[in-house]
């Protein structure tokens, strides 16, 4: 992990006319990790990623991929990276097998096409035209194309946007498989749940700027240390009993439901302890952990969906 990073971006800047898409962005992707660039629509994720892929030229700043320049050394890099685009189509009437075989013919050392289709669950669809595939199947085909050259680094831009939860889960498993095979994954998403489940580290980007980066757990711990436990009880002095606990900051009640908030990992233990000590009759109990969604809200002042 301490070796030099696979991707190193420092101070890149990109504007389209008067629209500043990427503004002084720096980050690094380490070998073997899943790194996520997360942010709302128009934040500059795709622009940043395509600069790293060598498809766009930043106006300023430096990018290194395996220590190489994405534009000058494009040829040398092509065999080491795999790319999946946010918006891509293939010829309507190309067959799945033909697409994979075409891609395979373009690289020096492709993996076995039949096995790859099998791994991605596309064997049955090998003779289907592209236009007849479902959204999830199309995305799996694009993943296959991104993996055909056995790349060390895989770029995935908004891989699951527009898919139903079931298809999304399937794709998540596939991304974990990619990582398990020792590859580095650089992805973008505006789904916080996806980032939290998949990524080892994330960078939050908004209006072209990186707001913060860390592991999802690290970001949550730093920006939203607040934990909440909701207890439903008819016990008369419950509010006072919970209020006296050290990790508790605040207790609010809504009828019989008490929301106990505080910080630190001890909060839940302390609440349970108090319940048993006072022999409270509890009818419902749940804990609420803050998510990356909350981190985003704290950092930017608005929800990512707005």
């Amino acid at each position, binding site marked *: 992990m301490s070796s030099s990073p696979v991707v190193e971006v420092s101070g890149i800047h990109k504007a389209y006319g008067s629209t500043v898409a990427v503004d002084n962005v720096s980050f690094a992707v380490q070998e073997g990790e899943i790194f996520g660039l997360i942010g709302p629509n128009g934040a500059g994720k795709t622009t940043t990623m395509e600069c790293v*892929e060598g*498809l766009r030229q930043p106006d300023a700043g430096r990018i290194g991929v395996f220590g190489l320049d994405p534009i000058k050394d494009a*040829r040398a890099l*092509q*065999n080491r990276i795999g*790319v999946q*685009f946010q*918006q*891509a*189509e*293939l*010829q*309507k*009437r*190309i067959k799945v097998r*033909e697409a994979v*075989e*075409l*891609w395979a*013919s*373009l*690289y020096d050392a492709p993996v076995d096409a039949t096995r790859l289709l099998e791994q991605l669950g596309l064997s049955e669809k090998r003779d289907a*035209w592209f236009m007849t595939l479902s959204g999830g199947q199309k995305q799996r085909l694009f993943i296959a*194309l991104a993996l055909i050259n056995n790349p060390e680094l895989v770029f995935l831009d908004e891989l699951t946007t527009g898919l139903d939860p079931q298809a999304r889960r399937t794709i998540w498993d596939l991304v974990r498989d990619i990582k398990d095979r020792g590859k580095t994954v650089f992805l973008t998403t505006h789904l916080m749940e996806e980032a939290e489940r998949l990524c080892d580290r994330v960078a939050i980007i908004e209006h072209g700027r990186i707001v913060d980066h860390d592991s999802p757990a690290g970001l949550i711990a730093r920006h939203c240390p607040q934990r909440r436990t909701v207890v439903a009880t008819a016990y008369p002095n419950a509010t006072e009993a919970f209020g006296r606990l050290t990790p508790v900051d605040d207790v609010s009640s809504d009828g019989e439901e008490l929301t106990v908030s505080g910080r630190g990992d001890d909060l839940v233990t302390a609440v349970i302890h108090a319940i048993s000590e006072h022999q409270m009759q509890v009818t419902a109990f749940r804990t609420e952990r803050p998510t990356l969604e909350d981190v985003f809200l704290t950092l930017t002042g608005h929800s990512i969906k707005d």
Partner: protein
Amino acid sequence: MLRGLWTLTWLEIKIFTREPMGLIGTVAIPVLMFVVLGRSVASRLTTSSWQGAETLRNGLPVFGAVFVAISTVLSLVAIISIYREGGILKRLKATPLEPVTILVTHVLVKLILTAITIGLMVLVGRRYYPSGVDVPVFSFSLALLVSTWSILSIGFIIASLVRTARFAPPLGSLALYSMLPFCGLFTPVEALPAPLQTVSSVLPLTYAVSLLSGIWKGNPWSSHLGDLAALVVVFAVCTAIASRVFRWE
């Protein structure tokens, strides 16, 4: 060099044959038109109005050829804009495929289809042209391929400038078909008023028509060096412009 060219060309031809409308428009309709017009020529040949038959006999193949060339170019314009809009060009560009390979592939596919169309026309044409009339089929096909190749470069400019797939084909048609009245196909260039003759002299299609009709009549290539040079210049200039303004996405 041009890695993947043949794989992609073969694949694109296969994909093309899966689309019924494309096949009908590019191959079937020109051949059908030829048959219909050919029948009328054949009937006139027997009614001994030799003068009219002469015009038709020489005019028809050139007429057919020009339409083949134009429909080829238009389908290239259409496919490039559809591919770009759908991100297919961009997807292909992010592979070791050279951008120029993709363009050359499409030119090849179109030229191969043109060759097939000519072949079919020659086959059906046998029935309407008296045997013994010596027709330079090979030279004429070559002239048509050269003309198409040159006009294709205009297609590239149109495909480069018009970004939306919906507008590219109509604008392409407008650009190409508006050359028709002035290119000597219907009215000989010499018969046009002087200002229109000037217009005619800057239209690439004029040189294509001149080359095609000359070769059909049996002129040697050496008498059409001017036309050839003009077509090569058109190709060089348009390709240079297109490669500057061409966008992959």
